[in-house]
């Protein structure tokens, strides 16, 4: 039996240590035959008027509750031996990771599906808001209908 990760939710204003997260998910997987890891990062823009950074705001307390509920739902749908969901808040430079989702399952199909489910639900339900910074201005990102569609398929 793979040891579950004691703290399955991390919300941090400090840069991620991806090696540490990978290790938590992948070390001594035990009975888990599959680990799937997803990392989302701030895009690096090559244009002159491009993105210079991003600020992520969240609703402390509610965000943790929602992530816990998404993790609970994922565990009820698939046999997951480990899961870790980490999300940055505060200021991020281009290239920095924003979100990390890692899951271990008995087989690859459930690990892939669970990771995608968690990301789709997180984007639709978790109380985070992005503000993009450009050379001349800063703008709050608007929600995309495609994200709603992605969450609706589960």
């Amino acid at each position: 039996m793979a040891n579950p990760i004691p703290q399955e939710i991390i919300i941090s204003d400090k840069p991620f240590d991806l090696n540490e997260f990978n290790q938590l998910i992948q070390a001594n997987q035990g009975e888990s035959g599959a680990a799937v890891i997803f990392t989302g990062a701030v895009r690096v823009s090559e244009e002159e008027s491009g993105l210079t950074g991003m600020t992520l705001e969240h609703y402390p307390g509610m965000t943790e509750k929602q992530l816990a509920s998404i993790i609970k739902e994922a565990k009820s749908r698939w046999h997951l031996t480990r899961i870790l969901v980490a999300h940055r808040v505060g200021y991020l430079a281009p290239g920095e990771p924003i979100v990390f989702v890692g899951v271990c399952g008995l087989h690859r199909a459930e690990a892939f599906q669970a990771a995608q489910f968690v990301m789709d639900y997180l984007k639709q339900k978790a109380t985070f808001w992005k503000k993009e910074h450009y050379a001349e201005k800063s703008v709050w990102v608007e929600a995309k209908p495609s994200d709603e569609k992605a969450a609706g398929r589960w």
Partner: protein
Amino acid sequence: MKVTILFFANFKELLDCGSLEYELEEGATLQKLCENLSGKGRQWRAIFGNAPTTVKASINQEMADLQTVLSAGDEVAFFPPVTGG
């Protein structure tokens, strides 16, 4: 009765307000609270007027619809659709 109201993201900026202690009548719904808030000024009306469809709301950190009845001491939050991930 008194409730606490929190605002996030561009709502917080537009209203220049992160949180508010607010007095309203017993048995008021979230809809009623939106109507009251829309009377507070131009920016407030822009967000809370006209049956808001782009306003998301939670009560005590659970998503809530506009027909929900509020209770004294509730923590209400208003925010735009989320954009994390």
